[in-house]
């Protein structure tokens, strides 16, 4: 992983902030609920310390994963605790019925769609800001141990740097919706992104 200056970290935080803001607005509109996003954290950490970002490895979460392709590829991932994922689905369907997120395909499609809209909004903001076009893949969903999901995402390309750059934002909705958005730019993409920002 490249060395990163304080100025570059600040620039990434600004990007994260604008992108997450767009995503939060999109989610608020979709759910007709107030959704807030924390100021993004930008951290470069050893992958072994990933649990400090994503939570206890064995606890199940609903995770939407979108590959970002184009000139500056990367990975966009939404982590939702199961209770929050279920509330999201209930709000979307306007019901208080309970859903088995492991098996209910309709609920799973709804969550993928939420991920799709959030990631697209994030990327549009990123493109507006940097001038770099990004293309999101079709979203994929896994509902399982968060560690298992995260290792599969990290290792998908068959390589693993010792450190990973996380741009992560906490989402909080009213009532009781929580989630986490993580953007992982590939190493080359980071240079490209920072270059486009002139830092």
């Amino acid at each position, binding site marked *: 992983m490249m060395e990163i200056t304080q100025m570059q970290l600040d620039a990434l935080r600004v990007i994260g902030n604008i992108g997450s803001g767009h995503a939060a607005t999109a989610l608020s509109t979709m759910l007709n609920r107030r959704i807030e996003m924390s100021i993004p954290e930008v951290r470069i950490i050893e*992958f*072994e310390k*990933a649990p400090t970002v994503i939570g*206890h*490895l*064995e606890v*199940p979460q609903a995770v939407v*994963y979108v*590959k970002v392709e184009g000139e500056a590829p990367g990975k966009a991932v939404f982590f939702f605790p199961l209770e929050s994922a279920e509330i999201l689905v209930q709000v979307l369907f306007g019901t208080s019925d309970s859903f088995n997120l*492991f098996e209910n395909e309709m609920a799973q499609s709804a969550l993928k769609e939420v991920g799709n809209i959030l990631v697209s909004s994030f990327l549009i903001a990123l493109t507006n800001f940097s001038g770099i076009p990004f293309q999101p*893949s*079709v979203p*994929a969903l*896994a*509902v*399982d*141990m*968060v*560690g*298992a*999901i*995260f*290792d*599969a*995402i990290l*290792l*998908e*390309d*068959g*390589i*693993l740097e*010792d450190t990973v750059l996380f741009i992560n934002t906490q989402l909080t909705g009213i009532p009781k919706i929580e989630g986490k958005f993580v953007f992982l730019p590939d190493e080359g993409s980071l240079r490209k992104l920072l270059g486009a920002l002139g830092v």
Partner: protein
Amino acid sequence: MSNVISVGMADLKTTKAPNILMTAGLGSCIGICIHDPVQKVGGMAHIMLPTAGNGPVGNPAKYADTAMDLLVAEIISLGALKSRLRAKMAGGAQMFSFPGKPQVLRIGDRNAEQVMLELKRLGIPLIVADVGGSFGRTIHFDVGTGELRVRTINHGEKVI
């Protein structure tokens, strides 16, 4: 009194009976467990990728082709006899599939294949494996009895 010793990602630990080694949330990674049932010592490695390739290895526990020799050497240093070593493994899942895209790089499968190659090279029998599927696993390995407990969220729990 047995202790549960946690093995992290790209980590490797050895211990004596009655201790238990555990690793949480294996996806495409593999938990490889080796023990000597007579000396009642053993170890576990949580490997992430099949081979280190040509680059700098860094942490050898990260790769199947570099972790196994180290794991075996450490188990032998606890008094194990190489000819008595037996292995079990779990993990190697494919957590995501993208519709319409060929899965050229099925890391889980490749990890499992590489572990089998390394075991063959080392002459250590693989007693049982619980690999593949599209779900995560948490494993507990009893180095004395060789019992491997595999826990999943939605696919049950078993001892192999």
